[in-house]
């Protein structure tokens, strides 16, 4: 997968020009953030941070308060300016953007959701959601249409004319999310969006965030201080401490090889079975056929790859079923369409525990699909057992 965002050697220091300079020098000499604050009075919020965030992944940054995660996420749209280092988005350093280009970047490419929602209290729900479009001078009809779509995506239809103050916390954050989605950004930045919500609502919103991806995949950077939340939604996770990155990896990698005792402590009270999902361990299928392929051709492919069956999807990647090699060999049909064997796929956001229940008897790799029934990967019951056992 392509890297969407690449952060190279990023340091953010708050303080005057002179103390910033000394702080950078002290960073290079290996002093910790605390020591530098004592020596210079400058606050080191990020210290030589390096990240690669892949296209369309949900990347979670987790850490305690003061670990520099909120500062970091604000550098991705340059609300905080890096003191040193590079931020490449699609290979281009966003610090080189002119004022106008930066504005365009913020208007079209990236949008943000805030911990305390950051709603415009003088505007009603629909006008909040329309704001990002309004400032681009998109005409009223068009922006109303897009805003209503965004409101529908977050399940707030019917509340358009309410004021933010009339809504509950969970609903206010939905408005915040709808507002961030209204300009259909490629990058979504979420700064502890669910921390101010009560646990039940938080859980619900996490699941909704995951199903939002079924509509459109986008690169999401999500900040939280809650390890459970991080593992529940993250494709990959970066753990930050004292302005530095301690470990980056998939949830499974964290459980398998915690980098040090700090990480171990951090994940100690995380219940794996309630967090790991099919998507965390699924693999890519070796070969995917289309219903219009000929049996002969498909047979040759399977033979050369040395596999017994393969998956079939239509032109929209919708999962149709699978075909067996032995059947292909005997067939005289023009296409493989009639040979497809239907099978119940498994939802990619299903918890491993539940997934295992439904496919423990299957002795082959089961297809994994998203909410729109598109094939996303494959998984076997052995793999689930292995992941849970680790």
């Amino acid at each position, binding site marked *: 997968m392509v890297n969407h965002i690449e952060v190279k050697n990023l340091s953010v220091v708050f303080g005057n020009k002179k103390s910033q300079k000394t702080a950078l020098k002290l960073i290079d000499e290996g002093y910790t953030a605390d020591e530098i604050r004592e020596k210079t009075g400058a606050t080191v919020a990020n210290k030589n941070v390096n990240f690669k965030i892949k296209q369309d992944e949900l990347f979670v940054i987790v850490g305690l308060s003061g670990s520099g995660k909120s500062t970091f996420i604000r550098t991705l749209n340059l609300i905080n300016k890096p003191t040193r280092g590079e931020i490449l988005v699609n290979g281009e350093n966003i610090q080189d953007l002119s004022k106008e280009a930066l*504005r365009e970047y913020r208007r079209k490419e990236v*949008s943000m959701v*805030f911990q305390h929602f950051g*709603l415009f209290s003088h505007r009603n729900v629909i006008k909040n959601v329309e704001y990002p479009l309004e400032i681009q001078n998109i005409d009223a009809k068009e922006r109303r249409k897009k805003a209503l779509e965004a409101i529908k995506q977050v399940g707030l239809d019917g509340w358009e004319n309410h*004021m933010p103050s009339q809504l509950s916390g969970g609903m206010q954050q939905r408005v915040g999310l709808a507002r961030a989605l209204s300009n259909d950004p490629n990058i979504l930045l979420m700064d502890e969006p669910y921390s101010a919500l009560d646990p039940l609502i938080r859980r619900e919103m996490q699941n909704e965030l995951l199903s939002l991806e079924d509509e459109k995949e986008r690169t999401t950077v999500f900040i939280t201080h809650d390890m459970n939340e991080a593992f529940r939604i993250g494709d990959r996770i970066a753990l930050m401490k004292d302005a530095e990155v301690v470990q980056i990896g998939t949830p499974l990698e964290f459980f398998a090889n915690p980098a040090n005792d700090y990480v171990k402590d951090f994940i100690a009270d995380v219940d794996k079975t309630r967090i790991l999902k099919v998507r965390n361990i699924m693999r890519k299928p070796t070969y995917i056929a289309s219903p219009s392929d000929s049996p002969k051709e498909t047979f040759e492919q399977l033979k050369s790859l040395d596999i017994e069956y393969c998956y079939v999807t239509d032109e929209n990647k919708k999962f149709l079923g699978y075909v067996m090699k032995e059947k292909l060999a005997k067939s005289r049909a023009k296409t493989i369409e009639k040979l497809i064997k239907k099978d119940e796929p498994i939802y990619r956001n299903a918890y491993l525990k539940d997934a295992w229940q439904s496919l423990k008897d299957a002795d082959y790799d089961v297809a994994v699909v998203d909410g729109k029934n598109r094939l996303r990967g494959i998984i076997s019951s052995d793999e689930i057992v292995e992941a849970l056992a680790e």
Partner: protein
Amino acid sequence: MFDFPEKFFFDISGYIDRFVIWLSQTFDWLFDFIKLVVGGLFEGTEFILNIIPWWAYVILLILAGWRLYNIYTSIALTVMLVLIGVFGLWNEMIYTLAIIIISVFISILIGIPTGIVMAKSKRLESILKPLLDGMQTMPSFVYLIPALMLLGIGRVPAVFATTIYAVPPLIRLTFLGIQNVDEEVIEAGKSFGSTPLQMLFKIELPQALSTIATGVNQTTMMAVSMVVIASMIGARGLGQVVLISIRRIEVGQGFVAGLAVVFLAIILDRLLQGITAKFDHQEGFDG
């Protein structure tokens, strides 16, 4: 030996006198222009206020009080207005009201932009803050002197002095209103790519609106109190009645005129407060 030594005396007041005279001579075209504009504004306002019959004010006030509060407040305010008429001070009240309206209008024109600029520039903030403190602690009479020297006698210097006296709270509250907009709301505005002007007009000013409205209210109250003092430099109206009564030691007349000023102040205050409260709860309002 306990007295301050005379050899250290230095007469500053003479220089100030000369400076003011120099100012009035060099910029007499400017002051003539101010006289023309403010005088014209005043006449226009007074003309409009005068062609509205007294009962129209009463009806409007009943409706406004009822809409903004309730029927009791509405009646109480209207009784005060009618009493001013009963005292025989209606025309004086209209004259005073005209000065207040124009002073507040000019205060808004000057105060809100100044407050905005002050919120945007740290340097200007550090200059203006002590200046505003000074303006608010300065005895109000002092403003009469330059007004008198630069603009002569009459309603224009009265408006001038009233404006200078009344504008600080509006500047201060505009500044505060913009400074106190929630940090995340500002970040949200920036993160979607707002231009500085869009930030100001679509986010900062609407968010600061109720604070600014409070500022307008305070400015109006300051103007009411100053307008009485301004009668010393030739403004007519309620203040003049008070002033004459003091000179002639007519306690009753002075008291009645003072009461009329208080009634006017209460009516204006309640109306503005009611409007401010409406701003706070308004639905779908967009600045």
